[in-house]
């Protein structure tokens, strides 16, 4: 601690930024400078950051591709859709069970294809002569083997280049089967600038092909959708436990622990609660436009944030019984959380963290660190857009560039039969007048301290610099960054898939996280770096001299 405090005094954020840029060729330095921000947010003024822009060739990025965002992130956690990757074998292989999405398929007769990897394994003749026939045969084979309710097709890079019409194949097979929805995603890896484009492609397709397919009434009160929660390490299970305890009915989670039917019934909910703003805010908008379901931003990461989000949901429904139940649940859950955090805080207060992950987690997890008395010195997203940093007010002014233009925007109109405003205009106005905020997200920047560093698309070189200069007590990013950081003697926690453990959402999740961070930052292993003879190499010489 002493040494890190000293270093922080010596290095101003401006120095750090300059040092990170110093070695770059001029063009790279200029571009990166616009993505590295020293937080000078004051009052209502939020500084502008460059985000969702191209990665620089050769600079070792943390980012993945559109296919990864589409197949891996969004559709990966849904258990009863047969996901067929159309392409050479690799893409399907790497996205096979690697994200720690949990699912509960314990019900009698429940379908669960998540342990399976399906691929057309395209060969050179398929690239030369086209892969549509093989794709069609693969869909038929999957149907004959499993008779699933849905088959999804995912395009990899060469598919778009050779012009396979995967959508036509999907339509044809859907018509042929009659009892199996077949749909395709044009999520070639080269589209967009990061996996974010894949989230859009996936969500748009699920919205247009699946949402609204099941009009059957769903039982339960206070029906919500939980958007942008992927059940990594069981987060969704914990949130569902709390919601159930409060008497809130979760109709559909997009997409942790989800099923086809959940998506198909999402229009039956009366509120959309958005966790990960980046990956899914546009679906919340479309649900509102088409079906009349309002949306709010929530955050179940952090015990206080969880309580706040539950109260927000209760306020929306305005039911005294629900409000009372939510308060009871919070009162019941908090003592355990407080007991643990009080103990852990004795060992974590004053420690420092850096978070570079995702499109929301680098923001949400700051709440948990704050609860532990830890300070976030630097943070940024891997694939977020400017609105995730600066707030939704910048959306109308976002520039459409060559890369974002290629990502389909779907236009939605109110559904003639099923559009039902959930609240009257007066009710909405009353809620808003009382301070209730719909579709609001202020982004990461306003919540970070003055003079902290906010860096978009941080790369390996800059990460190493940051850690060497600032020596945080913990660094959070993904698996690719994990071990280069730890080699420097700084513990690293994956916040994409959590390495191991979880859940970290909700009340029990907060407890798990406090304990996990306590374990990491206070592990004895970080004191084992040097052997005794390396620590005191001169000892024998001293002895002889004496």
């Amino acid at each position, binding site marked *: 601690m002493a040494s890190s405090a000293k270093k922080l005094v010596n290095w101003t954020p401006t120095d750090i930024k300059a040092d990170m840029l110093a070695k770059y060729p001029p063009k790279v330095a200029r571009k990166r400078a616009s993505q590295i921000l020293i937080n000078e947010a004051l009052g209502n003024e939020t500084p502008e950051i460059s985000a969702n822009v191209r990665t620089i060739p050769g600079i070792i990025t943390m980012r993945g591709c559109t296919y990864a965002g589409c197949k891996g992130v969004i559709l990966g956690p849904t258990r009863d859709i047969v996901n067929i990757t159309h392409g*050479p074998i690799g893409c399907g292989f790497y996205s096979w069970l690697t994200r720690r999405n949990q699912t509960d398929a314990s019900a009698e007769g429940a379908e669960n294809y998540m342990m399976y990897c399906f691929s057309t394994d395209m060969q050179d003749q398929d690239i030369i002569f086209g892969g549509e026939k093989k794709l069609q045969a693969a869909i038929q084979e999957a149907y004959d083997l499993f008779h699933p309710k849905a088959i999804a097709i995912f395009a990899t890079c060469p598919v778009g280049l050779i012009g396979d019409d995967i959508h036509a194949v999907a339509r044809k097979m859907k018509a042929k089967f009659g009892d199996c929805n077949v749909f395709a995603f044009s999520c070639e890896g080269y589209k967009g600038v990061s996996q974010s484009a894949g989230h859009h492609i996936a969500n748009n397709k699920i919205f247009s092909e699946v949402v609204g397919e099941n009009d059957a009434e769903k039982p339960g009160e206070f029906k919500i959708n939980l958007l942008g929660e992927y059940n990594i390490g069981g987060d969704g299970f914990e949130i569902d436990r709390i919601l159930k305890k409060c008497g809130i009915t979760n109709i559909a989670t997009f997409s942790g622990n989800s099923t086809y039917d959940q998506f198909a019934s999402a229009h039956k909910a009366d509120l959309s609660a958005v966790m990960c703003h980046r990956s899914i805010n546009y679906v919340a908008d479309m649900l509102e436009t088409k079906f009349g379901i309002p949306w709010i931003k929530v955050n179940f990461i952090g015990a206080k944030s969880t309580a706040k989000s539950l109260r927000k949901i209760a306020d929306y429904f305005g039911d005294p019984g629900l409000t009372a139940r939510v308060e009871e649940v919070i009162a019941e859950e908090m003592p355990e959380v407080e007991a643990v955090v009080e103990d852990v805080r004795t060992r974590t207060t004053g420690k420092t963290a850096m978070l570079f992950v995702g499109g929301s987690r680098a923001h949400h997890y700051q709440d948990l660190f704050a609860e532990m008395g830890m300070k976030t010195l630097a943070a940024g997203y891997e694939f977020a857009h400017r609105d995730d940093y600066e707030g939704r007010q910048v959306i109308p002014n976002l520039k459409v560039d060559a890369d974002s233009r290629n990502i389909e925007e779907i236009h939605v109109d109110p559904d003639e039969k099923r559009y039902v405003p959930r609240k009257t205009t007066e009710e909405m106005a009353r809620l808003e007048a009382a301070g209730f905020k719909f579709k609001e997200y202020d982004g990461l920047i306003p919540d970070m301290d003055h003079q902290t560093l906010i860096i978009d698309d941080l790369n390996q070189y800059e990460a190493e610099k940051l850690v060497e200069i600032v020596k945080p007590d913990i660094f959070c990013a993904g*698996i690719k960054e994990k*071990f280069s950081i*730890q080699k420097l003697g700084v513990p690293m926690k994956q916040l994409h898939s959590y390495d191991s453990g979880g859940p970290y959402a909700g009340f029990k999740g907060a407890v798990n996280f406090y304990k996990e961070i306590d374990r990491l930052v206070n592990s004895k292993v970080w004191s084992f770096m040097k052997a005794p003879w390396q620590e005191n190499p001169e000892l024998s010489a001293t002895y002889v001299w004496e």
Partner: protein
Amino acid sequence: MLLRHTPKEITERSALTINPAKTCQPIGAMYAALGVHGCLPHSHGSQGCCAYHRSALTRHYKEPVSAATSSFTEGASVFGGGANLVAAIENIFTVYEPDVIAVHTTCLSETIGDDLPQMTDKAIKSGKVPDGKHVIYANTPSYVGSHVTGFSNMVKGMAKGLAVATGRKNGRVNIIPGWVEPSDMEEVKRLAAMMGLDIILFPDTSGVLNGALTGEYKMFPEGGTPIADLVASGDAIGTLALGEWCSADAARWLDTQCKVPCSVLDMPFGLKATDRFIDTLRMVGGTSVPDSIAFERGQLVDLISDMHQYFYGKKVALVGDPDQLIAMTEFLVSIDMKPMHIVTGTSGSKFEKRIDEITSAAGYKANVKAGGDMFLLHQWIKNEPVDLLIGNTYCKYIARDEDIPFLRFGFPILDRVGHQYFPTVGYKGGLHLLTRILDLLLTRTDRDETEEKLELVY
């Protein structure tokens, strides 16, 4: 049940691969390139490929895996990735300062027909490659072969890109170890040193992907084949290529282009393959085998004889890569185990032929498939159960559903450690392997035996 939809009844599939027993070429090229000292692998394609390969290798080794990408966008995919590659080369040499960049292609850059030699040449002519630094490359289209092919192509790329035949032999022996673990590469070097031979091992990931935690991060660790050694490989007195699929291409290239005679051997897993390796190495290097190696061999024979009753007749299912499976099958058969179902995802009828020869000599016929998948393997197991399953981490779902003892072997191993530290090659590796197999089989006996029959001494 985790794999609850896998039926026992086997139906013909011509188009759908389920639970693949292979992955794509570029990851093999990346792994190989990490075994060159001071080398930064570079993936010429969209950034997802590089992210996936780095993630898979990182999870397998629990070590940093640095590699760069050309980060193709839609524009580059239409107009070609030349500008991206030249920019990447400049940025990499400026920021990371490697001694060599090893470029491999992807299905994306191959489909659009990017010409690597021409692009690399452009980078050199426009001064983006500093003096004394190198760019080597390999074409690794993902829609041909498998990760094994990509490994082989990059190893050949090392020879093509760096080996020089001066016409004066240097007395050294090239050993191309194939896709084995850093611990295996270390073991090959130890055995060669015991024989007093000066070898050039390439690639060599020992010290790179089984590193130490010291508080210091080096993007280019001490390990890896030195570039000077790769240059000198063209003047070696011979090459031992361990594995037809992984290593033979590079060895044959050195043979025809640099007149370095090559011997293609099996990977030295188990007694007989290690015997052939040591014996060939002795002859190529012109040296004798020290008693210390004969002693290690004797220890392996001793263990086989001591515990033979527990191996005898035990049925095994195996999935992995051709070179590894051939040597492993031979080893298991030699201790009277019975490999019953053998699947590799990599195509090639030569594989099936070799396995057939090995099991036929033992008097039985195994189920064998090149270009198969784990779904088929699981179905075979449902039809004829086995006592032991050997394969990568993905087998754990089969092992749990079918309740079979499971030995993690191959790539990737995502949920255990040890492969990076303890070898499978050589006699010591054989001891280590058999110890693990015995532990699995006897732990199962300890669990399942009736109380009256449970024994203290095995």
